[in-house]
């Protein structure tokens, strides 16, 4: 179990290898392999350049997204705003009509926003196409769909969701551009246009987008929980089905952001039920993670600490989500601090915790060095305390009626103490994050050498040196089960014998 062999590539076990065409390289396979061992470090053979399927599309999408971001920030300097020189796009993140009309948003800050979102949307779609094509067309030998790591499965689902979620936003932005530039009337209420139509179009993107954020986090947890519980993931097929189910159902819940618009009982009822139904596949995932930990030999290193934090907080976030999915309850609390607390519980308590877990887990693979464990534990405990002080108490002023998007309020409403606590928690989280950033930089130069497989993990990335060479694998691996490295480390009891 605890062997820490330096795994040097390429492997030198000729009888285990299925080589593309050894003959063309030399007289015998062994000579070829020995030569390859030297060569591969510097000169990857052309057929081994295993990056994404379409490198040019990759660069194109990346730079489109990046320039979309630059364009958005350029608005601070370039857009003539209400008060002169620069102004931020100031129509709120969902940019409801008719506020975005030329009459109500003069100047160009809204144009910067529209074009930036459109541009980065195209970049996102390009990357999603790339990920799907790579997943379908570049699997190594033996990597059937049912043997793919759950991380890859979830990225596949996320990318498919990008096609159907980001495109409507792009379409809506095209309409907004037409409205603002050449005087069409899509969202122009004066000419019979509908402001509610924009709301629908925006949230058709807006809610699946939340799942586009959370699914990669699920993906990280799927990888981390089994490794640190020393067990295979529980219910792999159910996990895949639940992920695909979330992908589909998430497309039919958008209008739960619009219960206060007045859609009528039929519309409200549909979206209440759809929203409640989506908690079923999410619940399946939660129980599968718990069942993976159950009876396992859990190792509480920093990635696992963050993963457990994720499980706990994401559960609570899901429960307040179910509360808000009930339309009459939502009428009371819509646009209050309760909603703010709910989605920060998802985004900070869920997504950010999973991201931190992923950082600690894959940092050794990315840089070749371990992150400092002691600093990592400080980071975790301070962050988890800060998180709960901030966001647990944030629910209460919401229930007491404090609205969102206010920078101040009258004294004596009973909100002061809660907001003070929220502020203190935020400071604690800030300190924890500074520790994390210090740890990132410090470990990059001073961290312990990681070796190829510091966690004794089972997926293929841990078979490469850390950091991996640009061509990933000197020799394309061929696998027979979901945990190829388990098979390798335990030839007496390989997973493949159970398939």
């Amino acid at each position, binding site marked *: 179990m605890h062997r820490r*062999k330096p795994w*040097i590539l390429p*492997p*030198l*076990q000729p009888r*285990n*290898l*299925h080589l593309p065409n050894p003959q063309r390289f030399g007289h015998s396979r062994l000579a070829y392999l020995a030569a390859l061992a030297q060569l591969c470090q510097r000169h990857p053979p052309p057929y081994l350049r295993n990056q994404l*399927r*379409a490198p040019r*599309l990759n660069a194109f999408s990346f730079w489109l997204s990046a320039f979309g971001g630059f364009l958005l920030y350029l608005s601070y300097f370039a857009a003539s705003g209400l008060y002169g020189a620069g102004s931020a796009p100031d129509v709120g993140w969902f940019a409801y009509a008719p506020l975005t009309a030329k009459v109500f948003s003069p100047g160009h800050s809204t144009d910067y926003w529209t074009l930036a979102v459109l541009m980065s949307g195209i970049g996102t*779609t390009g990357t*999603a*196409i*790339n990920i*799907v*094509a790579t997943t*379908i*067309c*570049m*699997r190594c*030998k*033996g990597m059937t769909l049912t043997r793919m790591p759950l991380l890859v499965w979830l990225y596949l689902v996320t*990318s*498919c969701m990008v*096609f*159907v979620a980001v*495109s*409507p936003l*792009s*379409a*809506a932005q*095209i*309409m907004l551009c*037409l409205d603002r530039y*050449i*005087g*069409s*009337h*899509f969202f122009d209420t004066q*000419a*019979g*246009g*509908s402001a509610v*139509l924009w709301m629908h*179009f925006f949230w*058709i993107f807006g809610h699946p987008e939340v799942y586009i954020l959370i699914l990669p986090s699920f993906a990280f947890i799927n990888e981390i929980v089994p490794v640190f519980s020393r067990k295979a993931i529980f219910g792999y097929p159910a996990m895949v089905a639940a992920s695909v189910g979330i992908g589909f159902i998430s497309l039919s819940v958008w209008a739960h952001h619009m219960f206060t618009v007045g859609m009528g009982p039929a519309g409200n009822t549909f979206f209440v039920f759809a929203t409640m139904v989506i908690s079923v596949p999410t619940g399946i995932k939660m129980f599968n993670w718990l069942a993976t930990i159950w009876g396992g030999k859990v190792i509480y290193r920093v990635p696992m600490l963050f993963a457990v934090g994720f499980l706990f907080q994401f559960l609570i976030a899901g429960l307040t989500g179910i509360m808000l999915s009930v339309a009459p309850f939502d009428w009371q609390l819509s646009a209050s601090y309760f909603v703010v607390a709910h989605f920060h519980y998802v985004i900070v308590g869920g997504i950010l915790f999973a991201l931190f877990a992923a950082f600690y887990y894959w940092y050794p693979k990315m840089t070749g060095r371990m992150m400092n464990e002691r600093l990592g534990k400080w980071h975790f405990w301070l962050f988890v305390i800060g998180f709960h002080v901030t966001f647990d108490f944030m629910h209460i002023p919401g229930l007491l009626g404090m609205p969102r998007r206010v920078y101040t309020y009258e004294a004596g409403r009973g909100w002061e103490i809660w907001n003070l606590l929220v502020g203190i928690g935020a400071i604690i989280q800030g300190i924890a994050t500074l520790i994390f950033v210090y740890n990132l930089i410090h470990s990059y130069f001073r961290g312990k050498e990681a070796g190829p497989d510091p966690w004794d993990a089972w997926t*293929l990335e841990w*078979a490469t040196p850390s950091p991996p060479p640009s061509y990933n*694998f000197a*020799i394309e*691996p*061929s*696998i*027979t089960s979901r945990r*190829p490295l388990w*098979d*390798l480390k335990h*030839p007496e009891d390989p997973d*493949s014998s159970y398939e």
Partner: protein
Amino acid sequence: MQTSNTIPVSADSGEPWVLPHRGIVGMWCLIAAESAIFLIFVVAYIFYLGKNLSGPLPSQVLELPIVGTICLLSSSFTVHAAVTALRKGNVRRCTLALALTILLGAAFLLTTAKEWHYLIYEAGLTIQTNLFGTTYYSLVGLHATHVVVGLLLLIAAFLFSLSGRVTEAHADRLEVLSLYWHFVDAIWVVVFLVVYVIGR
């Protein structure tokens, strides 16, 4: 085997491991994304049917674009013929079929241009006139833009083919292009039904 550090190879490693062509997969993804964009425009069109505050109305000014529709739909067959010919190694036939496809696509664009000319200069309908103008020009225009992009790609393929640089090995790539062209045609069927049949 105990100390081995290789990735184990399956016992039946002799079996072929065939994965789909990346271009085809990528194009299907693009089609999914584009369909979502068109869906939003179609929904906007249907949502605003009969909500115009002023004329002209679709029933007063729209004619069924029969000729253009026939041209565009038959170009699907010619582009398919081009791919089939190239698969069989018949480059000449492929070039011819591509030329025919381009002509049919251009004929479709011409009928659209004539229709727009009539609407703008005689019927007095622009994108600013009313909700019908807004949704009509944006939906039909979005489709026409896709036809233009497809035509440019087809012209590029045609020129390569004419200069003798296209061989049987490029059949997969041409099929990716033909897939896009079929998609543009399929969208036209939807636009035709929504704008000219249901919306009139």
